[in-house]
């Protein structure tokens, strides 16, 4: 059960290798990677965060998922700083006995990371820099849980 907040990149395979899955208890591993997306005018993303709050917020999201579903392990890595187009932003991996639980927990964690983790994205492009607005759909999505 690990949460990492870091500037450097991560390797999905290495992170999944560190998931606890032993003893035949794990039947499903789901992983999600968020990537800097944009058209050619986007050069990079600046990811600002609130260091004193970030880790605690991610831990809380992870712990809520652990209470809600029967999971074997959860690993969250979230980057901050300067990220170029196509770079990995964050990942979440969930190991569970059953597929449905793994899917729901990963979906849940992503929903809360979107709207409850203290990160803010600024896009740097050909036409200057602009703060990414929160998508109202993301906030609404929390009502599903």
């Amino acid at each position, binding site marked *: 059960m690990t949460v990492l907040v870091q500037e450097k990149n991560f390797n999905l395979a290495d992170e999944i290798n560190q998931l606890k899955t032993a003893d035949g208890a794990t039947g499903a591993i789901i992983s999600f990677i968020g990537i800097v997306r944009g058209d050619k005018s986007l050069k990079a993303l600046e990811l*600002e965060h*609130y260091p004193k709050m970030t880790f605690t917020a991610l831990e809380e999201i992870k712990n809520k998922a652990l209470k809600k579903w029967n999971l074997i392990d959860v690993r969250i890595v979230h980057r901050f700083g300067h990220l170029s187009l196509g770079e990995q932003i964050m990942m979440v991996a969930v190991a569970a006995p059953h597929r449905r639980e793994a899917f729901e927990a990963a979906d849940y964690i992503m929903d809360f990371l979107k709207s409850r983790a*203290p*990160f*803010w994205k600024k896009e740097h492009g050909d036409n200057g820099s602009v703060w990414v607005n929160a998508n109202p759909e993301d906030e609404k999505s929390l009502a599903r849980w």
Partner: protein
Amino acid sequence: MKIKILYFAWLRERIGKSSEVIETEAKTVEQLIKDLRSKEERYDFAFSDLSSVRVALDQTLSTFDSSLKNVNEVAFFPPMTGG
């Protein structure tokens, strides 16, 4: 009462600083915002649309009507865009 205030993202940019310690008699976040807005125009502008401002009290997401009693650190920021 002395209180530490942090600003993130475009709130930080509009106000022109990432943190400050201020002396205030505000009892709630609402009152604190009112105090700040009356300070200078850039504060007034930063807080002009509260529907796009969020607040955390001692690193916990809170509401504008929350009390500042025993609070050490207030953070203002736009809606979060993690993930």
